[in-house]
């Protein structure tokens, strides 16, 4: 039989929480069945924060990096629209948008 490695003892959890900063009340064991609302059932694991911002697990995402996908896709959509519009107009598919009048 395997032993459970999670810090299940409440005292351990509280001590861990104290070290790590502001922690939400930790679930004894996250099994995914205790829902705040329909479709919203996540709980922090014992010893882990409800919010990671400001915690040692904060990934500190760079907003500029997070914006890059959206920027790229918007630009590609605009180029594709130019190509499709030109195709409907001329019957010729021109990939290089700089050559589209």
């Amino acid at each position: 039989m395997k032993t459970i490695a999670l810090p299940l003892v409440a005292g351990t959890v509280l001590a861990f929480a104290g070290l790590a900063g502001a922690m939400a009340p930790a679930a004894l064991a996250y099994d995914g069945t205790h829902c705040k609302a329909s479709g919203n059932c996540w709980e922090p694991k014992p010893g882990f924060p409800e919010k990671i911002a400001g915690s040692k697990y904060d990934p500190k995402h760079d907003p500029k990096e997070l914006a890059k996908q959206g920027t790229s896709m918007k630009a590609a959509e605009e180029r594709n629209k130019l190509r499709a519009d030109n195709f409907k107009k001329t019957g010729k598919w021109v990939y290089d948008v700089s050559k589209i009048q």
Partner: protein
Amino acid sequence: MKKVVGTSMLMSASCMAIAVALQLGVASSAHANDKLIELSKSKDNWVMPGRNYDSNNYSEDTQINTDNVKQLKHAWSFSTGQLHGHEGAPLVVDGIMYVHTSFPNKTFALDLNDPGHILWQHSPKQDPAARSVACCDLVNRGLAYWPGDGKIPALIIKTQLDGHLVALNAKTGEEYWKVENADIKVGQTETQAPYVVKDIAIVGSSGAELGVRGYTTAYNIKTGEMLWRKYATGPDNEVGIGDDFNSANPHYGQKGLGTATWEGDAWKIGGGTNWGWYAYDPAVNLIYYGSGNPAPWNETMRPGDNKWTMTIMARDADTGQLKFGYQKTPHDEWDFAGVNVMMLSEQKDKDGKARKLLTHPDRNGIVYTLDRENGDLISANKLDDTVNVFKTVDLKTGLPVRDPEYGTRMDHKATEVCPSAMGYHNQGHDSYDPTKQLFFMGINHICMDWEPFMLPYRAGQFFVGATLWMYPGPKGDRQNYLGLGQIKAYNAITGEYKWQHMERFSVWGGTLATAGNLVFYGTLDGFIKARNSDTGELLWKHKLPSGVIGYPMTYEHNGVQYIAIMSGVGGWPGVGLVFDLQDPTAGLGAVGAFKNLQNYTQMGGSVEVFSLDGKNPYDDVNVGEYSKG
């Protein structure tokens, strides 16, 4: 004379004539559906992945059957010239076989009267940098076919790893249109087989391992114009969620969750890409597919249920709006990307009620069956009794009941987690025999240890955050790293497995079922096998040049039934072999699990074709001979 068509060859003069037709009437009243459905009914054709809109990889052909399958012999083969993994299967339409390849994503058209003659080939010139952002080898899963409308010629729709979606004239191979659907600079790639519904080409993307926010896009096949694009995460209007979303099952969740179940802006890099298979029900005009894993794999970095990653999606084909979405693995902790095959069937449920169903063997070790009209969960059973991440799935709530012992988290190495990140089922396209009510599933039998680590997000760079060690599941041979797969016959209503057998390696590519009472599949160590679909008895096998990660298909030509399969090891399980990697944690953990694969097979892409007694066009020795003029 064969035609070699490169990307630089754009539109021919004939397109001017087409332009007139376009200007006169872009919208034709006739959709491709009827013609595609008609074509798919013929034993001569295999017009889409899955063979038909039910995506059941089932053929009614009985010419090859349990009585004579031992007479199956090699008929002919075709080398694709590409070494990396070949997933998916070729298409056959009106006597022509269309063959795709791994990067650089060549496409070949072969005349089945003389398959040694390449009618045309499309050889795109791609940015080689695409290879560096491919997750798991350089695979591609196949092609789509649009039958034409009398004004516009039949088209082959293909994806390129560098992010392009391309339409080719099916008769000439010339590019008809080419759009940018993904940007490798931000980690997006294309490996998926596109899907044709009506006059729409539908395609997803890959890249969740690089933090790509998943999206699905529809293009007007006639014009290349984007019709809609919907995301897996984010605001409701971008996901395609309206007032009636999940109206039959509000407990699955409804509005606002694409942002509310993420912390901050994490949904912008939250994964949920779809690169697997589609199915379509014309009666309700819904397409079905699964969104993939949230990013990064390190669960501690993304608190929340991470909707709507890991979700069985049912979208209106015309608008992209979601009718329902059922998230199988809320807050994924194991990379159980939910993109696997969706197979449609009509069966009676346990109460005897006739239902239109969708069955989906998921990576998370559960095979789900839903009412495909409203999303009701009908059954959810373990793909193997060794699944331990979940204790069960509550059919009333739809929630999996996790076993916290096998959860993952920072500052902890989880061990003996089953399934592994590869799932007990991955991208293989399985089959369903409606006469037996059996699904034939190729299974991975792999478990893992998992240790997360923190990392920053940088667009276009890998964003995983976990180290994995994979090894055979409890029923395999852990001393020798064998016993990594299974083949099973499953009844979705009773939840019972009629038969099952272990395999040396994963049955990665999927299965083909036929009315000849047979199920065919390929193995990573390079066999194509046939089993009695009633009993599972192994009846026939043939050693192929390389291992298989695609699925078999069948067609008739001039009255002869053929079985075809792509040979060409690679993909995620073959990544150690193809890139000569040694570190067991490399290849996202695959290298260790499949370290013995190299002792059974080597690289090399080809199409291998079989028939009874090896009958083939060259039985007439004059076929294919040179003659002047």
